[in-house]
Every structure is written in C-alpha cells, then in structure tokens.
C-alpha cells in the first residue's frame, strides 16, 4: 500500500516538480539579491533546447546538463548586462529576453535539423534515470543551508533588503546582484535541461509552456524562502500530475473532467493566496529598484 502510494504518487510528483524546483530556487536567489526575474521561462526554454542538442550529439546526459546550465547562464548574464549596466527596466528586459528566447530553438533547429523547433529523439540509454532527482535534493539542501547559514546567503539577502547597509560594509551590491542573476541562469537552465532529457527524450516546441512563470509564482508563494518555495513547487507539480492522470477520466456525470480547470489551478491558487492570505510587503524591499 505504502509502496504503491510512493511509486504512483510521491515519486511522480517529485519527478514533475524537479524542473520547477531548480528554476524556482534560481529565481529565489535572483530576487533575493534585489533583481526581478521574470525571464525564468525563457531561460528554461533555452536550457531545455541546448541540453537536448548536446545530449543527442554526445549521447551523454551529463554534457547535456552542462550545456543547459551554461546556456541558461549566458542568457542570464545578457539579462544582467541590460539591467545592471545598461539601466533597462527589469520587467521590460525580462519580457524581451523571454521573447528572444522563444525565437532561439526554432532558429537553430532549422539550421541543424531542418525542423521548426524540435530535436531528434535521444535513445533511452543516453537519458537520465534518477540522477536529476538527487541533484534536485542536493540543490534544495544547499540552497537552504547557504540561505540561512552562510555569509554568502546573508549578503545576497542584504543586497535585496538593505543595499545601503551592504554598501557601507564595503561590499559591492552590484556584485551580489550579478551572482544572484548568474545563479538564476544556471539553475533555471538546469531545470530546463531536466525537462528535455529527464522528463522527455527530446526538445519539443515551446516545451517550457509556462513552467518558468509557475516557478516564479512558487517563489512568491514561498515568500522568497527556500523550503516554502520548494513546497509550493511540489504543490504545483502535484496539480500537473493530477492534470495528466485525470485526462479523460469520468469522475461524475458522463463527461470526463475538463483538464482546463485543473490546468488553471496553480495560477488561481497563486492569485488567491497572494491577494487574500499573504501580508503586503513580503518581497525583498529593494526588489526591482536601481542602485
């Protein structure tokens, strides 16, 4: 009985939550440093694409993971350049990077595979079995420990909460924000990679399909704290699982349950909790502000 619950519900929930958890942890670090990160969606998409391409090429998923992280990192550094150096508005630039990222996979897949946004299928023995799960658990533990117990975590938090204080301690606020942005890129890229080479066996068009935004919602519901953020990801992962499981299932009456209503649950929950169950100023105080 217990084993059945584990293999039918708990393990699958953990699996589908994995991309969300990586991306959300990245988003949390970035926003904690004081930079809004609505570009998670685009980073995941690009990470998923390059992970699939490199895994297909090398037949080794570890190279794929590396490619996903690296491409996410590069994209986020571009974002950092525009918002930290070129003074672009963070929400505007984030939207721009999301649009830009949507164009990259179809552009390159046309050149490499003559397809409009998908990659060749990767054979099963070149895919991960469960390594990303352990990676995910490790990054949750590391994030929580570094957030609560390290100088690094404290300084990132100060960059987002009280940049003046950090500055007067002689530490560069901008430097901390670069680190936060870089973390979000690498982690969201890793999250994207798990979409294409762990949960699937190739990249398909617009594969992230809103998961970057769900991850962002999880950060907000988790009040920008590591463990609550992960809990929110698990909740959203569970609704995703429900949505898959209830496809075509008749629960009452004669019609199957419309999956659309389950699809919108994470977004609905986010709005309701945000509006009615959370106090006003939970966000890092300097979030979105310029120095």
């Amino acid at each position, binding site marked *: 009985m217990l084993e059945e619950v584990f293999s039918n519900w708990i393990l699958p929930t953990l699996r589908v939550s994995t991309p969300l958890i990586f991306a959300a942890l990245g988003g949390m670090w970035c926003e904690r440093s004081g930079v809004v990160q609505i570009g998670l969606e685009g980073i995941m998409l690009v990470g998923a694409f390059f992970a699939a391409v490199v895994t297909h090429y090398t037949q080794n998923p570890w190279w794929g993971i590396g490619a996903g992280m690296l491409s996410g990192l590069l994209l986020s550094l571009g974002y950092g350049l525009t918002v930290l150096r070129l003074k672009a508005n963070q929400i505007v630039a984030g939207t721009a990077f999301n649009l830009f990222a949507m164009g990259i996979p179809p552009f390159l897949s046309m*050149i490499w595979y003559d397809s409009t946004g998908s990659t060749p299928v990767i054979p099963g023995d070149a895919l991960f079995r469960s390594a990303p799960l352990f990676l995910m658990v490790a990054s949750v533990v590391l994030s929580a420990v570094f957030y609560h117990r390290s100088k690094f975590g404290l300084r990132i938090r100060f960059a987002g909460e009280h940049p003046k204080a950090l500055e007067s301690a002689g530490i560069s606020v901008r430097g901390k924000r670069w680190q936060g942005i870089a973390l979000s890129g690498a982690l969201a890229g890793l999250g994207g990679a798990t979409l294409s080479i762990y949960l699937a066996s190739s990249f398909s068009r617009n594969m992230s399909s809103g998961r970057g935004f769900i991850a962002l919602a999880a950060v907000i519901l988790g009040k920008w704290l590591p463990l609550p953020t992960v809990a929110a990801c698990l909740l959203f992962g569970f609704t995703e699982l429900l949505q898959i499981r209830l496809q075509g299932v008749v629960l009452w009456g004669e019609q199957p349950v419309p999956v659309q209503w389950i699809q919108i649950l994470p977004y609905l929950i986010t709005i309701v909790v945000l509006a009615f169950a959370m106090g006003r100023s939970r966000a890092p105080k300097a979030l979105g502000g310029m120095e």
Partner: protein
Amino acid sequence: MKNSDQLRIPHSIRSFLRSVVGAIGGLLAGLLICRFAGESPGKVLTVLLNSSFGSGYDFGMTLFYMAYFILAGLAVAIPFKAGLFNIGGEGQLTIGALAAAWAGVAGAGIQSPVLAVLFATAASFLAGGIWGAIPGYLKARRGSHEVITTIMMNFIAAGVTSYFTLYVLKDPDSSQAETIPLSMVFQLKPFAVFNGAPMGGLILALMAMTLVLHLVLRNSVWGYRLKATGENETAGSTFGISAPGAWLSSMFVAGGIAGLTGLVEVLGNSHRFKIGFSADYGFVGIAVALVARGNILGILPSAFLFGVLQKGAGSLDLETDKVTRDLTYIIQGLIILGVASDGLWELPARLWRRRNA
C-alpha cells in the same frame, strides 16, 4: 550637472530619437543574426519589406496586424500612465475575442448589422475590461503586485477560453478547436483595395480611437488623475486623487481595449474563435508601448512597425531556406532591449570621460 554632457535637445524629441535609433539597432542586430543561418541580412530585409508592402493584399495584412498591435500597445500604455505594468494584454485580448464569438452565438437572432457589431463590441470590451479590472482591483484593494497577477490571469484566460471553445461554444461540424461560426450580420467588410486581406474601416476607427484617447488622457480630469497617480501616488492622494481609483479604472479601460481584438480577429478575420489565434500579440504590445515611450499617439507608428515585422516574417518560411517566421521573436526581443537599454546612451560619454581623465 546631469545634463551638462548632453546636447540641449528637448526631452520629448530626444526620447523619440532614442526610440527610433534603439528600434533600428534592434532590428539590424536581428537581421545580422541571420548570417548564422547562411542568409544575407539584406535579403531577409528585402523579403520582409516585399512581403508587407508588395501588393494591396500584403499591405492590407500589414494593417491587419497593426490593428492588433494598436490595441495591445494601448493596453500597456494606458495603465502605465498610472504607474502600472500590464503584462496581461494577452489574456485580456483572448478573453475579449472569445466574448465576441459568444456574442455571435448568443445574438444569432439579430438582423441588423449595426446592432450586431455594437453587441459584439460591447461584449468584447466588457469581457476584456473585467479581465483587466481583476488585477486592477487586487492591486487597489489587496496590494497584490499587478505584474504577477496579470501573468497569472494570462494562463487562466488560456484555460478558460480553451474550455469554452471545446465544451460550450464548440462548432460540431469542425474537427478543429474552434467555436460556432458567426452569421453574416456579425462580419466586418474588408476594403476591396486590399484584395481579400481582412481589413477595412476598422483600422480607421482604431486610429480615430487612439487620437481620442490621446486627447482624453491629456485633457480630461481622468487623464490627470492617472498621471498624478503614476508620478507620485502619495502626493496625488494628498490632493484627493485616489490611487486605487486610477488603478482600477485604467486597468478596466486597458483590458477593454485589448478585448476589442475580438473585432479584429473574430468579426474581421476568422468569424469565429480559434484557440491559439494570437501569436503572443499581447506581449508584443509591451514592445509597441515601449517603442512609443508611453506616448499614446506614438503607438500608431510603433504598431505599424511591428505590423510590418509580423507580416513580413510570415514570408520568411517560403522565401528563405533556413530562416523562419520565428525570427520575429528574436527581432522583437532585440528591439525591446535596444529601446529599453537607456544606459547605452551614456556609454560614449562615459568612455570619453575615461579617456580624458
């Protein structure tokens, strides 16, 4: 001191020029990227321009996309006056389009074309308006950040519209995910010069609406309230201007205007609601408003530019070997970055100072 190293050009003209240069720079960067695909940027640009101006039909299609972008751009620019960032144009416009399709079904008995169009207009404006007013209300009463709530509302709109399309208004004779087709009285007539492109008097009406909005926002009490709230919400409230009121009303109007996409798409083009008709037009609206620097009249040329891009890119699939219409996403993103990166303009001055230091 701040302005000492800048040429003395009036602020509005300077920001207009920066927009133009930023947009052109973004476009050029996007074209240069085509080199990676082995296509010459010049050829891609020729395809873009030919495809959007080459014939009456092509130009009609360009104006058709421009109509989308006028609406989506206004939906961002109006709340921006009140200091709000409406990322929810996409959801508001899909809900508005669905409402227009619903109006066609619910008002199937209407005989007069004028009444039919008025009914559909009211339905799409109201539906989009309510969709926009929800984040406006949550911001005003609960302090929820509008960027987050509008993003969430986009996804909810996608779920709700696909539910209604598949289960409630589904066309039983079609195998596609689309609603029951509208009767003739609901269909807007295109201009003959456009050779069958789905665009007619509507584009003139939208331009007139933009002009009226410009005047209203500049001269009316409501426009003043939005601006006062946007510039300084606490100072505004000392003079009795309610920020929540400005937020709620601007989001309602913006959502309603986005919802009018129902007229462009449902009444003017496909005569029904199809899932996925919008190629992220709502997000392009952010780019449109940004290139216009929040100036309402500036929306018109800006929407035209993005219309050219959208129409032109459609031909890339056929006219080039390795570049597809998805290039628009890359170019749109780069144009936004080109316009939004204000710091680019200080780089020459900074380098100059460093060299002379």
